[in-house]
């Protein structure tokens, strides 16, 4: 027995010693612990596409313009700018004290370099479309012209002129996107494709990249060379890569995280009750929708049927009982809170659900379906608890109100995407759209006939021409009218069923000061500080 006893003793000692390791306190620097829902695919500004990559880059990089914590546009690396009367020429003056993390000055040429890289087909940038309005951007991306032909010019070290092919009122918003951030040409020359790795990466933002453990954590520390370094309160930021929402919640509750990127749906009730002052819910520029495949029966050329299905869904029940995270039910396509815009609504938006159900039944009959000819359709969605619950709820609603038999098909995300694009097998599919910038255009443009992200295959000449006209306007008012009219037509055609508008949900520790809710869900670490009595976790 002695051998067994001594082994057990050793084991217990090991466990105790291991427990003693927890709760190490580091140096006095303030450290912010944030959650990131997945690894960025890259930190090369022109190669990114994901929200997560954007989050990191907003901390380690800076564009010409930026946002405040509450979402107002402000100068960033550019201290001022002027716009020509025809809206086609933007002249930026770069700050004289803008620096890279190695001490070099940030010049206008660095911005131009970044933008040319963005449209250069050799970079194969996902977000090249953001700057499609710059002169020659399209020609360069399709290979007809070289990157030097791009309508950006660094007149001198501090002056950058960008020329557009058509007036784009939201152009400044586009320049907040990390894909337009500058790149130090020397870094690319020296390290080639590897210039974006920790150790090589030069940062012109508030923080620099110290290390990146894929699948685990990204470590950022203060960039002393940053022109506004004095205003940066937090010394180190650690972005923890945590794909499971439950794990984020657990770690937050255990005091290991200051900020989560989301809240698990199943725990939402509990979180709302127990941690209501730490829970931040804010409208976000995104719409969750079910799309119809308009290229094939039964939904091709059948607006009455589409409208019936759209009306029969009780969106209030969806957002209160099924998702229950403070989402806004959607009776329009463009979300509320978009700059300079008033979304149109479905004509049935004012009816109550009982009236809508009756109306829907009539429409269904008109479309030729009924108890002796029941409608049988397929609903595709991607694997996720939330998606599943919503699909089950909608299936049940369509069944009860309209007698429609819906087969649910749960597909892996990649598979669903492929199917949506091919438009062969889909009938009704789940999708969503997050706005790229704070303007109605980002939502309406994807419904243009030639837009690659037009999953339903919607094609309406009047809609297209209204969008075209809107693009040509220089004045904000007429442009807005065109866009609103376009949305009205879109809604009347029912190519999609918008279900709800996204909300961002974060748990933010009471120790964090300076958090601002905004519709883009951008939260720069440099705007935050940690309350003095708990600087170290």
């Amino acid at each position, binding site marked *: *027995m*002695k*051998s*067994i006893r001594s*082994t057990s003793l050793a*084991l217990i000692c090991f466990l105790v*010693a*291991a*427990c003693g*390791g*927890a709760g*190490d306190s580091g140096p006095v620097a303030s450290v912010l*612990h944030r959650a990131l829902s997945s690894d960025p*695919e*890259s930190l*090369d500004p022109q*190669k990114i*596409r994901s929200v997560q990559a954007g989050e990191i880059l907003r901390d380690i990089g800076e564009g010409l313009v930026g946002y405040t914590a509450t979402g107002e546009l402000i100068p960033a690396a550019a201290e001022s700018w002027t716009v020509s009367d025809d809206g086609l020429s933007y002249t930026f003056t770069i700050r004289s004290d803008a620096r890279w993390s190695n001490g070099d000055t940030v010049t206008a040429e660095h911005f131009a370099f970044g933008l040319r890289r963005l449209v250069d*087909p050799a970079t*194969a*940038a*996902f977000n*090249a*479309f953001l700057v499609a309005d710059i002169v020659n951007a399209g020609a360069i*991306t*399709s*290979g007809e012209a070289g990157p030097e032909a791009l309508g950006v010019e660094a007149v001198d070290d501090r002056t950058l002129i960008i020329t557009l092919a058509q007036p784009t009122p939201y152009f400044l918003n586009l320049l907040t996107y990390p894909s337009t951030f500058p790149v130090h040409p020397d870094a690319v020359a020296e390290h080639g494709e*590897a210039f*974006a*790795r920790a150790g090589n990466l030069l940062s012109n933002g508030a923080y620099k990249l110290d290390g990146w*453990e*894929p*699948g*685990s*954590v990204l470590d950022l520390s203060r960039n002393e060379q940053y022109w506004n370094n004095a205003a940066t309160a937090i010394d180190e930021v*650690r972005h*923890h*890569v*945590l*794909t*499971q929402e*439950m*794990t984020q919640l*657990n*770690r937050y*509750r*255990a*005091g*290991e995280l200051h900020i989560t990127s989301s809240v698990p749906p199943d725990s939402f009730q509990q979180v709302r009750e127990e941690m209501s002052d730490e829970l931040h819910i804010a409208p976000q520029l995104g719409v969750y929708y079910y799309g119809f495949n308009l290229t094939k029966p039964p939904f091709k050329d059948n607006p009455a049927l589409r409208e019936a299905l759209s009306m029969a869904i009780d969106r209030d029940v969806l957002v209160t009982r099924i998702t229950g995270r403070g989402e806004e039910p959607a009776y329009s396509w463009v979300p509320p809170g978009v700059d300079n815009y008033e979304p149109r609504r479905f004509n049935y938006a004012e009816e109550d659900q009982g009236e809508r159900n009756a109306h829907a039944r009539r429409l269904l009959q008109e479309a030729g379906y009924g108890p002796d000819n029941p409608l049988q359709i397929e609903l595709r969605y991607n694997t996720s608890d939330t998606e599943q619950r919503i699909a089950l709820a909608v299936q049940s609603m369509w069944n009860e109100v309209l007698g429609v038999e819906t087969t649910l098909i749960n597909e892996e995300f*990649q*598979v669903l*995407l*492929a*199917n949506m*694009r091919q438009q062969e097998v889909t009938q009704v599919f789940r*999708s*969503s*759209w997050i706005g790229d910038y704070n303007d109605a255009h980002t939502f309406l443009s994807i419904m243009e006939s030639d837009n*690659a*992200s037009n999953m339903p295959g919607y094609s309406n000449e009047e809609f297209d021409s209204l969008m075209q006209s809107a693009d040509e306007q220089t004045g904000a008012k007429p442009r807005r009218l065109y866009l609103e009219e376009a949305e009205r037509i879109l809604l009347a055609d029912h190519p999609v069923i918008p279900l709800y508008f996204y909300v961002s949900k974060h748990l933010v520790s009471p120790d964090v000061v300076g958090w601002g809710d905004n519709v883009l869900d951008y939260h720069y670490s440099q705007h935050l500080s940690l309350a003095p009595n708990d600087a170290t976790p």
Partner: protein
Amino acid sequence: MLRYALLRLLGAIPTLLLVIVLAFLMVHAAPGGPFDDERVLPPETRAALEAAYDLDEPLHQQLLGYLSRLVRGDMGPSYRYRDHTVSELIGNAFPVSLKLGAMAMLLAIVIGVAAGSLAALRRNTLVDRAVMVLAMTGISIPVFVIAPVLVLFLAVNLNWLPAGWSGNEGAARFVLPVVALALPQIAYIARLTRASMIDVLASDFVRTARAQGLGTSAIVRYHALKPAMLPVLSYMGPAIAAILTGSVVVEEIFGIPGLGQFFVRGALNRDYTLVLGIVIFYATLVVLLNLVVDLLYSAIDPRIRRR
């Protein structure tokens, strides 16, 4: 012995090749690709990306290209982590999984053998039944239930241990994942040991030893333990596979950047090179490990003669 080892290794190569081809075909068979997203790519961008990653070549050409690079030790860039190579990702993830797995295995053996021996010695008493019931619980409750329950009580509510992996230093962050991973194996090993120990204790030479007046602990230590461990040793192969499987769950739940996590995400992201790299790496590793286990087995029991 060396010849045997070498022959075994050589014999494994054709199978490894088969594994690579199979995995390659399967990943490419899955619909969707590494660059798909809701925001559909403009055709020029898609063309440029596919050219950069050789995805526009016919499949057999891609396979040959991959194999020729593999022979030179180059597993290629990751499609999803565009700033990292597959070798690098595996190089970072493997030590983590290794530590986790090794500690779980060690814990499982130590506690499993101890518990099983105890149960065998105190056969049919309360202790025996208690140990066996606990063992059975370990087998019948899936890891993805045990782990979150442990996290909830020990980390979140009582704050005794860290709830996650990243950003925590020290051995403390290993405790919960290792325990969760080890529990089912503790159960199996305890059962195996108990059964085998009972047999051994009833055998002639043990009875002789007892007749000669040797005490129980001496008998266990010097006579019974080694032969009783034989079935445990031959369980090592399946045990390693089981820990590998379990690690996928545990890594997911605790956010541990191990090979299991990277594999699942790689498969879902269609990160072809990463997936292939991990499959090959693991297959090679397991072949080597099994060889080691076999050699150990014959070292312990010299009665085994290889054909």
